[in-house]
């Protein structure tokens, strides 16, 4: 992966796609502002589109990649990106269910305590990446979160009908 990073003169390319660094506090403060008005789904949906497009691009550049390899790439990329330490807990290709854990979530640490899960960006990326890799519109809920007092964050990616989501969450977290 390290050979796929090019950096010079204010330009960073990660596996051929231009990228940039954002101070974590910036991102968390934007998220807090959106969460005040129940619009965290904007972060989720933007990250979902971005995750989907990233894997779509990768599949063109590295055609023939297996689904399991693509998931592993996604996990490595997220670790490299500074969001925490992700691990793949479960991958059921038949039922299209994936579970990721995220240790030391940087967003959760910067966010502080919360009564609701806070990793909306990570949720979106995994939903978008999963949707492309498994060829179905998938969504993601954060079932455990460091900010809620859990030891780590856990994400369940699956078709929306398999996720137990309240109507409030459906509106605020998914924009539906």
């Amino acid at each position, binding site marked *: 992966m390290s050979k796929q990073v090019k950096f010079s003169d204010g330009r960073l390319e990660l596996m051929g796609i231009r990228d940039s660094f954002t101070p974590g*506090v910036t*991102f968390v403060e934007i998220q807090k502002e959106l969460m005040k008005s129940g619009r965290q789904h904007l972060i989720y949906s933007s990250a979902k589109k971005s995750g989907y497009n990233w894997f779509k691009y990768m599949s063109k550049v590295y055609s023939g990649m297996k689904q399991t390899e693509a998931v592993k790439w996604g996990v490595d990329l997220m670790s490299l990106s500074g969001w925490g330490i992700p691990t793949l807990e479960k991958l059921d290709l038949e039922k299209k269910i994936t579970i990721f854990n995220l240790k030391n979530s*940087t967003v959760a640490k910067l966010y502080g305590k919360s009564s609701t899960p806070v990793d909306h960006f990570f949720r979106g990326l995994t939903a978008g990446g999963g949707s492309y890799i498994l060829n179905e519109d998938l969504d993601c809920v954060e079932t455990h979160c460091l900010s809620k007092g859990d030891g780590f964050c856990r994400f369940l990616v699956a078709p929306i009908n398999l996720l137990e989501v309240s109507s409030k969450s459906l509106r605020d977290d998914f924009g539906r």
Partner: protein
Amino acid sequence: MDIATELIISNKLQFEEGEIKLFGTSIFLIPPEVYMFLYSELDKTGQTDIFYKTCQASAFELFTNLIKSSHKDIDELIAFVPKILNLLAYGKVSITKKDLSNMVFEFSLESPLYPEIFGKYQKPIDVAFAGLLAGSLSAVLKTPMRCIEKECVSTGFGNCTFVAEMGVL
């Protein structure tokens, strides 16, 4: 030695598993598309100033930490602003005007990231970068500085240019 290597050796830019820190401040890699989607949504309700304010606060914290851990004079610190912002990879930053007595500065941003993603737009779109410049200069000059994007590649200019002066937006 380039600035990134220098900072890594001096342990001021740290890449650890799942975490990146620059002068003790956590930074993330965020796909620029995410900014584009969020900016477009927040522009509908006239709330894009949130990018400016939050980036300003982050850059202020980052440069305050930098100043604490360095022994540079004011000219060296001002010269450091584009070097550090180059590391964030929004484009190639350079100072094009430096008037310390009147506290007026101009910066150019070549090959800017967001206009490359956005394409054409009806107004300058680099409010986040303007916020980063305002926060950086406020910390370095120890006085509130504001910054606006005067010209933007998305509105048809060759480079993005930013003007910073004393005051608050």
